[in-house]
């Protein structure tokens, strides 16, 4: 059913600490590996060894350079997957009811037996969280490893999404954002957690901790020194001894 639940009992989601992520892609690889064998798999790989490999990934690690005046440039690694939004536009546009948001835990899922592959949900999502499976003719997306987090045959500490359990840096946290006492709620409250693209009014559940603010402004001095040395060398090379 594509009507969004008024309130979900839990708000399961991820909190990603951009201070800690080193862009190793382990989360993306682990996600692909886990889910290709799971309930929504396989995640197609087209021409995996050719010139133009392509396929479905639920999680992709972007990276950006940030330039700000008076600061040294910084690199931010930016893993991005479905944010399991409270006001998920991908769910309400679905004409078939294949897209749904679960009332019990807020996870957004696609039912592959009902999806007609019209792709409208991928148009509605501002985050690019949904990818089309050309082999199966249906839309696919992050399930928050719904077949792992509720699996009672594995030990309790392993019941977290695959991306979280594999992250070697400890940048990814999983928990219930509806519970103010949970690990993710507390981390979010203590650390200026951010919504992606709040302008889109989707109320994402997943949160991102921003890189920490720079306290020292060394960049100008550093540039200055470098250019001094460079200028001096050029002067020497030109046998210019003025000044």
């Amino acid at each position, binding site marked *: 059913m594509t009507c969004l639940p008024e309130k979900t009992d839990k708000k399961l989601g991820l909190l990603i600490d951009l201070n800690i992520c080193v862009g190793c892609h382990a989360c993306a690889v682990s996600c692909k590996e886990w889910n290709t064998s799971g309930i929504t798999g396989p995640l197609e790989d087209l021409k995996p060894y050719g010139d133009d490999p392509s396929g479905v990934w639920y999680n992709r690690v972007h990276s950006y350079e*940030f330039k700000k005046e008076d600061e040294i440039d910084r690199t*931010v690694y930016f893993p991005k997957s479905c944010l399991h939004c409270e006001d998920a536009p991908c769910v309400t546009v679905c004409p078939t009811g294949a897209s749904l948001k679960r009332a019990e835990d807020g996870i957004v899922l696609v039912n592959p037996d009902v999806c007609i592959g019209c792709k409208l949900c991928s148009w509605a999502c501002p985050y690019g969280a949904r990818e089309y499976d050309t082999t199966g003719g249906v839309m696919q997306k992050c399930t928050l490893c719904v077949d792992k987090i509720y699996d009672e045959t594995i030990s309790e500490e392993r019941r977290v999404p695959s991306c979280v359990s594999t992250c070697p840096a400890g940048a990814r946290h999983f928990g219930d954002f509806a519970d103010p006492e949970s690990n993710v709620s507390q981390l979010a409250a203590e650390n200026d957690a951010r919504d992606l693209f709040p302008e889109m009014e989707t109320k994402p559940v997943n949160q991102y901790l921003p890189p920490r603010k720079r306290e020292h402004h060394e960049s100008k001095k550093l540039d200055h020194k470098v250019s001094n040395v460079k200028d001096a060398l050029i002067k020497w090379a030109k046998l210019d001894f003025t000044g």
Partner: protein
Amino acid sequence: MNPALSVIIFSTFSGLGYGLFIWLTANISMGTPPTNDQSVISIVLTFVLVSIGLISSTFHLGHPERAWRAFSQWRTSWLSREGIISILTYGPMVFIGCNIYFNLGFDVLIKPMAILGLIGSIITVFTTSMIYASLKAIPAWHNKWVVIGYQAYAISSGGVAYIMIDGWQYYKVVIALLLFALLTKIVTWVHIDKHRGQYKREDALGLPDFGKASPFEPAHSQKNYLQREMGYDLCPKRRILMRWIALGCGFILPAVLLYIGFPLAPIITLICLGGMMAERWLFFAEAEHVVRLYYDRDSV
């Protein structure tokens, strides 16, 4: 957005079809008794155009055999609503057509059926436009001009087709509507050009206070589904060319040809349809999805 032929054909053909049906049913509703041949031709043409559009729209589905499921989510989905109302509008269409052609004698019901058909057609075009206008992630579509425009283009192009079938008595009204539609299109372009660039990459990343962000290492080596579906790059020269083709063939030329009384009305209709297809191609090609902010666009 990638301008897929199946979707362009769907919305132009069904737009023309419902536009034509709006003219026929409006005429009957206002008391003009449906004359045998012309009305049947109008209805057959409407039926064919709308059906080509609907069938074409299933070509881009991953599972066309499941298309019936799309009628279920009318509570939230404009696509679902469009599917339902477009199918319902077949009712009056088939009824009026059969009643005239087979002389069934339900003449009392013709007028109420025409009113239902008229309302159904207008709502169908409205729901089609709302599929696009409801998408906040595509700013070029998320505005009222898309809704006004779809209605204007359907009724003006339908009017040209109606002249072709039922004679020239309303040609001045059609010219006025073509000019109104032309104006709508220009206002739409002014609107989207003015609002281009309103969302920044830093907003998308949730980090507006960290300076200017630019992509560093790509997340993947080759284009993925998102970039193929939503990463269409429109060359600025082609934009200008296509805008002129859309204006010229969609509105200006049909209006001029109607004004001078060009004898071959089917040619005017074809020119108008061609212009509509150029307009719809641009509608997709010009619309940039905000997901591009995570890839190659600083602002959308």
